[in-house]
């Protein structure tokens, strides 16, 4: 019995390692490619061990950019992506927690109608409403701006629903105790509801940050200036070169750099994230 247990464990571990290898190998390859000389990659003679051009390639990527397609340094693209992703994540959380608070705790005319209206927007992703959204943003002169990049993506039915579900599990007595303790609606929200929602907000932040960071279609449409483009658009532009060799080390370095902020966010917030998804204790 004990032997079988051990055997089973080995099998499980082997399967896990195979899984890790499948996921990690391309990432490793991207990193290796980013440290090689472009000519070596173009020849198809790339080694599986890191080459000697690490510092040089990353310096060029971050501060200079490719010499051909986009002349924009990737550092700037990352900044654009970061600002956009943060604005989207923070904005979505702020808007949706406030609307969920209104829907759950206040009685006003057409409350349920509004709730369903928000709910229905779940069925309308960016792609479906892209023309009207573009028109509005253009009319408001928000093309090529951070506001234009983030504002149209900020409203979130999913996050509103999530907060609504969470608020409904908060015992009514807590609100009543607050009322007796002399806390008005704003105080109750700020002193009690927000701290209780901390883990939920953290979990949402992780998901929404990555969602924002990975936006492709919308930034592609509304940014035309090189200095406003996000890293996801940048990578795409770097690959298509008409009359020159694609600068693969720089492309790969950009890909590696594009991965870092989401990884960083997940690692830092992992504990809160997991607690936010599984926690039931109030």
């Amino acid at each position: 019995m004990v032997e079988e247990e051990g055997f089973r464990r080995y099998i499980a571990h082997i399967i896990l390692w195979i899984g890790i290898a499948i996921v990690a190998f391309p990432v490793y390859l991207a990193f290796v490619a980013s440290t090689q000389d472009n000519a070596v990659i173009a020849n198809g003679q790339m080694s599986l061990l890191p080459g000697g051009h690490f510092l040089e390639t990353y310096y060029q990527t971050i501060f200079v950019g490719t010499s051909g397609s986009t002349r924009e340094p990737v550092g700037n693209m990352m900044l654009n992506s970061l600002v956009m992703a943060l604005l989207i994540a923070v904005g979505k959380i702020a808007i949706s927690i406030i609307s969920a608070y209104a829907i759950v705790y206040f009685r006003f005319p057409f409350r349920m109608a509004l709730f369903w209206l928000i709910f229905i927007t779940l069925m309308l992703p960016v792609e479906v409403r892209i023309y009207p959204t573009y028109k509005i943003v253009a009319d408001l002169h928000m093309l090529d701006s951070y506001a234009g990049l983030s504002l149209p993506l900020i409203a979130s039915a999913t996050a509103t629903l999530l907060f609504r579900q969470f608020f409904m599990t908060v015992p009514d007595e807590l609100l009543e105790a607050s009322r007796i303790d002399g806390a008005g609606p704003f105080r109750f929200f700020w002193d009690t509801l927000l701290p209780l929602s901390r883990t939920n907000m953290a979990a949402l932040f992780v998901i929404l940050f990555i969602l924002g960071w990975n936006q492709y279609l919308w930034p592609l449409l509304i940014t035309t200036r090189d200095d406003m483009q996000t890293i996801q658009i940048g990578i795409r532009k770097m690959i298509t070169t008409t009359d020159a060799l694609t600068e693969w080390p720089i492309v790969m370095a950009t890909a590696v750099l594009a991965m870092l902020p989401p990884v960083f966010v997940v690692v830092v917030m992992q504990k809160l994230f997991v607690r936010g998804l599984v926690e039931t204790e109030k």
Partner: protein
Amino acid sequence: MANVTLRNVRKTYPGGFEAIKGVDVDVGDGQFCVLVGPSGCGKSTLLRMVAGLETVTGGEIDIGGRIVNGIEPADRDIAMVFQNYALYPHMSVYNNMAYGLRNRGMAEADIKTRVDEAARILELTSMLERKPRQLSGGQRQRVAMGRAIVRQPKVFLFDEPLSNLDAKLRIAMRVEIRKLQRRLNTTSIYVTHDQLEAMTLADILVVMNGGQVEQVGNPLAIYEKPATTFVASFIGAPPMNLMSTRPEEIRSQLAGNAAADAGILGIRPEDFVITDQTPDGGVALPLTVEAIERVGAETFVYGSREQEEQRVAATPGELPPGEIIVRIPGTEAPAIGAKIRVAAVRQKLHLFSSDGRTRIEV
């Protein structure tokens, strides 16, 4: 310090459901008033109306000479202890108690004095920095009480505060609440469905049923002279035996008792003795022992009457038709199946009109 007076208080929900059908209660300064009744009788609703958490649709609530009908809970000068404690989970014990005072803009030094004092009284001093989830049920209960005490309100309101505790702790906390209330001498209203809690805590007992007050008064007076069959069966455990006076067996024994219009006879289990004699003017019943429960200090005998009879409409804790509970000293225990004869003296008989709504003095 304040009186609490309810004048013809009513609550009708928008759907037309009448939860409180006109309640008049007067709680004197420093008195401990207990609202007791079965689930759904409106006792919690009434308490929440005093707290200001439910609107009042009729009548007046007067706290310390001020009509508070339209006043916010925070401005009524009351403090409430909830059934599930409703402690703020993310705040330390200290902050839980200090929160209400801070919202009132009290100076931090004064808050500290008050919280420390409350913590000392409730033996929470060593736990002030802990979070509620790190406390046991009894400790959470005490924090909830502490939160009420630091406010130094005119009135304490308790909404079944002990029902989440285990039996032993409940008794200990019950005594503690009583002692605390005596010491602070603060007018209190306490809601419970546990008649034992009600009997032991109350200066004034309010027995409620179906949104109405059945009887108000001193707990012992209510026990001795219940006004209706509902009160008779609700107060006292095991409940009072209620039987119709129609059968000839009982009718003949009551003949001399000026109880011609009485329809229901009630006798408490503890007022029966097993005897062959019939006390003068009393009632004796032959029983067959169906079951016995020996709990140490006393024995409960469940007996059935010889003849089946019509059941008396009384809720709750009602007995099956013809079944009688008798409480005798723990040293005795008749055999199951034995034929016994139990009797009660005249002073211990309770007579009610046939609908159970009126008490008839023997």
